[in-house]
């Protein structure tokens, strides 16, 4: 694994009227190739700013950003960078350019001047990955939200990026659509080795990541694996976030004196409870429910 993104002391400031606002302050981190990163934070915490600094939508006021050896402030290499760093946004409807799905997928590679034969290959490949092959020459109007967002991901994949940034791409979807998109993202990360940066405010999505960054008022306050991050209950709550529901249950139970491990997912919680119960019945062999 090699380092793919590196932020050194990065701050971003913007002006509105007389006042200076700070988007992000003193960010220091590096992301390895193939990692799945989740960025958590409430509205206005700077998580979108962070993602826009990676693909050069915004330019760092201070500090150094290095993405795939390219400085995003370098206008001459900006397209090279953006073809490598794909970005998917919140509303799938606002990302589609063409009235036909295959034309929409062709848009990115066309812009990059990829030969036609290869575009055809890429379209088939991308649609296959997001599992939407049979929709190749359909219109997007009748698709569900999850399907539309998968098409939006495929449209980015057709540029063959190394990094995929999802800027609250699941926020507008229903639970089914969210599941579909999450499954696609995980598949991309595991099978295609894509580096994924998922910006979200859903805790259950963050739990799936390799590493989690919690942003609060432009500063990364907690960083680590999901288990490490969610143990920092106070810091997470200070950032205006709630723990994943299984973890909340867990903490409540621990505070009531139950001896169970700290868990993040529904499955782990169920396992922990079963184990707890079995242990209890072993401790008191004579006890029986009536």
């Amino acid at each position, binding site marked *: 694994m090699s380092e793919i993104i590196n932020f050194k002391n990065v701050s971003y400031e913007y002006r509105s009227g007389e006042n200076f606002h700070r988007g992000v302050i003193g960010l220091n981190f590096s992301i390895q190739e193939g990692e799945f990163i989740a960025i958590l934070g409430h509205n206005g915490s700077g998580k979108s700013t962070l993602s826009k600094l990676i693909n050069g939508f915004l330019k760092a006021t201070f500090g150094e950003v290095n993405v795939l050896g390219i400085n995003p402030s370098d206008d001459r290499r900006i397209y090279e960078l953006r073809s490598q760093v794909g970005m998917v*946004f919140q509303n799938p409807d606002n990302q589609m350019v063409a009235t036909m799905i295959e034309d929409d997928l062709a848009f*990115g590679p066309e812009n990059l001047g990829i030969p036609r034969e290869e575009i055809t290959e890429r379209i088939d490949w991308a649609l296959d990955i997001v599992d939407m092959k049979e929709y190749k020459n359909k219109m997007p109007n009748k698709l569900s939200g999850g399907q539309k967002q998968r098409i939006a991901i495929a449209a980015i994949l057709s540029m063959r990026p190394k990094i995929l940034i999802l800027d609250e791409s699941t926020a507008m979807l229903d639970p089914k659509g969210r599941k579909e998109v999450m499954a696609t993202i995980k598949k991309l990360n595991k099978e295609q080795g894509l580096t994924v940066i998922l910006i979200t405010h859903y805790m259950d999505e963050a739990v799936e990541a390799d590493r989690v960054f919690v942003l609060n008022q432009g500063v990364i306050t907690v960083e680590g694996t999901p288990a490490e991050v969610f143990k920092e209950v106070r810091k997470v709550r200070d950032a205006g976030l709630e723990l994943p529901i299984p973890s909340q249950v867990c903490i409540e139970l621990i505070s009531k004196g139950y001896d169970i491990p700290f868990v993040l997912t529904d499955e782990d919680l169920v396992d922990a409870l079963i184990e707890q119960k079995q242990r209890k019945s072993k401790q008191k062999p004579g006890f029986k429910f009536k």
Partner: protein
Amino acid sequence: MARDLTLGQYYPVESFVHKLDPRIKFIIMTVYIVGVFLVKHIYGFAVVAAFAILSTLISRVPILSVLKSLKGIIFIVIFTAVLNVFFHTEGKVYFTIGKLLITEGGVFFALKMALRLILLVLGTTLLTYTTTPMALTDGLERLMTPLTWIKIPVHDIAIIMSISLRFIPILMEEVQKIMKAQRARGAEFDRGGLVKRAKALLPILIPLFISAFRRADELALALDARCYNATPNRTRYKKLKMHYRDFIAFLAGAAYIVLIVAVNNKFWIPTLTYSFPFI
């Protein structure tokens, strides 16, 4: 449902006309329109009408649905016809209303103008009936490609057209949503006089514009994220190919314009000049 709505009224059947290359269709359409304005002769109109009817028959679009498109322009046709009757005073006077004369020349001129308008609309309707909006934009882009030499951003124009087409159903749906939301707040859209109704539209338009701008903002980012304008050597995924049938259609168009010029010069039927002087 508003979602299914697309611009134009594409009539999806398989036919010779449907399969034609959009570029050829555009060229023939232009030739056809030139023909419509070139004819001076009633036999010339017969040629134009025959061309329009024949194309419609070949396209397998029901003639009735093509004729329906005339409903929208009936008022304009009558209006121009009536105006033209009075503006042209030539030849035999049929009768007078005050100072206005209705003459043989005037009547014929009015008839011609009305016919022109009708044929114009019939032809263009057939184009939208047989060509998808996508193919239309595509064809137009290819035809305009030479204009890039004089620095006209043809591709940008094509993208603008294609995006507008894509967003029409989305914005329609949005209008429905906003109307429902405003109704829930007690708005009335179908009551009162003209002014009151126009005023009632304001609470729809403002949220619609706000949301359209918001969408435009995100769309701009999405275009940038997908490297729009990264290289001037953009490639094309879709290829438009000319077939035999396009050549045949092209010949038909050529024959049409030759025929019209011939009839205009009355070179087969020289005696006609004497029988109907104003036709």
